[in-house]
């Protein structure tokens, strides 16, 4: 047992897992509010990261200004997407909605490549110190920032859904659209809001990953990695999404450990989450925290 490799890998897994958790939360938000599975979640990260990079590199804005402008843009982006593409599809079979989000994903991925090219572009240096030493592992300051932001977002979501009017409206809509509507909640507005928040939160994740690894089309793969996380945690549970993300992050790195020590196949890091996904779907399809849909005959 090579502890000197295992511990840093687990730590790395937790840090990356926190990011997966953030993305998974945005995904679950959309699903909870509007029953739409967003296959384009990864592209939200991508668009957010590229927009922030562009603002910082082209106009030389300070980081916080660019970041806030990016968040504002992504809020608008989410609302426009929901109104233009998803609203006409309300009531259509689930396959159509899935295909629409897939189509959106393809479109925006290609659009970003067209506008910004295929090379990975690094962010201009933002933090005075690049890395921090914790428990024997050098961690990028950006990752610590992301950890902090993730925790903030989690608490923010928790407060939002339990104590704020709009959050309660969203939960009501997710529970029963008809009743919510009859109580005076504007369901289209709730949908738009859920997409806006999801886009915003994903953009945060995208910017963080962009700072660490550079912005490139590889960011959209986060949108695929989110599936094992949300299935594990339960498609409609925010807490489950966070836990699912952490577990997937650690799982990846554990798989890498096993691969490096004994198997030497080289691909376990990328493919292990999908094996886990299939396993969970067979054993416990509703995940750890998802609501069991009861079918009555």
């Amino acid at each position, binding site marked *: 047992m090579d502890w000197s490799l295992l511990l840093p890998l687990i730590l790395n897994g937790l840090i990356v897992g926190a990011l997966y958790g953030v993305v998974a939360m945005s995904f679950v938000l959309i699903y909870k509010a509007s029953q739409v599975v967003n296959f384009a979640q990864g592209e939200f990260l991508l668009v957010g990261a590229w927009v922030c990079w562009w603002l910082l590199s082209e106009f030389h804005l300070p980081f916080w200004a660019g970041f806030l402008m990016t968040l504002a843009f992504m809020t608008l982006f989410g609302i426009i997407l929901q109104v233009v593409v998803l609203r006409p599809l309300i009531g259509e079979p689930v396959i159509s909605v*899935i295909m*629409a989000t897939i*189509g*959106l994903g*393809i479109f925006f991925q290609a659009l970003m*490549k067209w506008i910004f090219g295929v090379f990975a572009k690094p962010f201009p240096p933002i933090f005075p110190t690049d890395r921090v030493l914790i428990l024997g592992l050098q961690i990028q300051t950006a990752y610590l920032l992301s950890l902090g932001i993730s925790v903030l977002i989690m608490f923010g979501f928790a407060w939002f859904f339990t104590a704020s009017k709009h959050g309660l409206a969203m939960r009501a809509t997710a529970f029963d659209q008809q009743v919510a509507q009859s109580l005076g909640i504007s369901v289209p507005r709730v949908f738009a809001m859920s997409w806006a928040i999801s886009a915003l939160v994903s953009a945060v994740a995208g910017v963080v990953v962009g700072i660490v690894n550079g912005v490139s089309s590889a960011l959209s793969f986060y949108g695929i990695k989110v599936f094992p996380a949300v299935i594990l945690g339960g498609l409609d549970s925010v807490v489950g999404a966070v836990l699912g993300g952490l577990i997937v992050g650690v799982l990846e790195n554990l798989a890498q450990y096993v691969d490096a020590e004994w198997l030497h196949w080289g691909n376990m890091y990328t493919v292990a989450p999908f094996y886990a996904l299939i396993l969970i779907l067979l054993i416990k*399809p509703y995940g750890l925290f998802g609501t069991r849909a009861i079918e009555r005959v």
Partner: protein
Amino acid sequence: MALSPPAGEYHANYREDMTIFPSRNSRRALWVGILVLACTPLVCGRYELGLLINIGIMGIAALGLNILVGFTGQISIGHAAFFGFGAFMSAWLHDATHLPVAICIPLAGLGTALVGLVFGTPAARLKGLYLAIATLAAQFILEDFFARAQWFTGGTSGRITEPFALFGWIADREEKFFYVVLAYVILMFVAASNLLRTRDGRALVAVRDHYLSAEVMGINLAYYRTLSFGIASFYAGIAGALYAHYLLFVSVEAFNILFSIQFLGMVIIGGLGSVSGSLMGAAFMVLLPEVVQSAAAALAGGAIDRALRLGASISFLREMAIGAAIILFLIFEPDGLARRWRLIKAYWKLYPYSH
């Protein structure tokens, strides 16, 4: 039977109700169509024949997916992996056993059907969205398997295959392979149309429309869902094998997630649950990149080209066009090209009355 059908539904017996061709004209139209297609190699150039061959191959695979998605109401985002499996299996069978290619293709279809059944069995327990995610995972897992299984697929280097040969007639040029594809297209499409007239076909539709009622009526859900996966994989396997022996080279890179999504796009654009729609959707998906390419080539060198950097970004424009086409069709024409074609036919038939 009348030359053209009377207004309204009027069937005197069960046979009339179940027929594929409601009138003599439509039957004749089909024969004329096949004859015209059979003559195209004499008229068209290699490029057009290549496009038609691609449409045929993709059409067969799209039809399989349509049986799964349109007729049984399930979702599969991993169709390209089964397509690839058929391609690799046919290539490997021919290399390993030296069976003639003409036999390897159906065998590859059967092999892929078996694999599809294996995936279908757990999939039968999942519904809708969960099934979509499971098939997405299956796509990645199979892709990884293809990349690692050197003995079967040639690993990441791929494998060279032999052309289709029958009693000394080698179909290594588009003009000859066109007939092979045409034969298979006719066979598979007739098979699918007939499938939907049988009891099993109706059971599949029942599973889609209201599975609880279907189960109450005694239709075994798990059996039919698994069967539909098997049938879809059979079609994908045949199409993949044809693809392998057309291109004379197979490698795992061709069978990625974008390809799976293109199949879904073909089914949706063509029309869910429509046999002829599968071919229309395949034609759309195959011709769309060509249209984008021609448009970019036409604009090449001009001011728009320079401003938008069209020339260097042609592949991105292609992908954007695919994504945009899927979204636009879903918003404006959710029932696909098949419905639009039915409306056009109805307009012609009933002019000047609207219905």
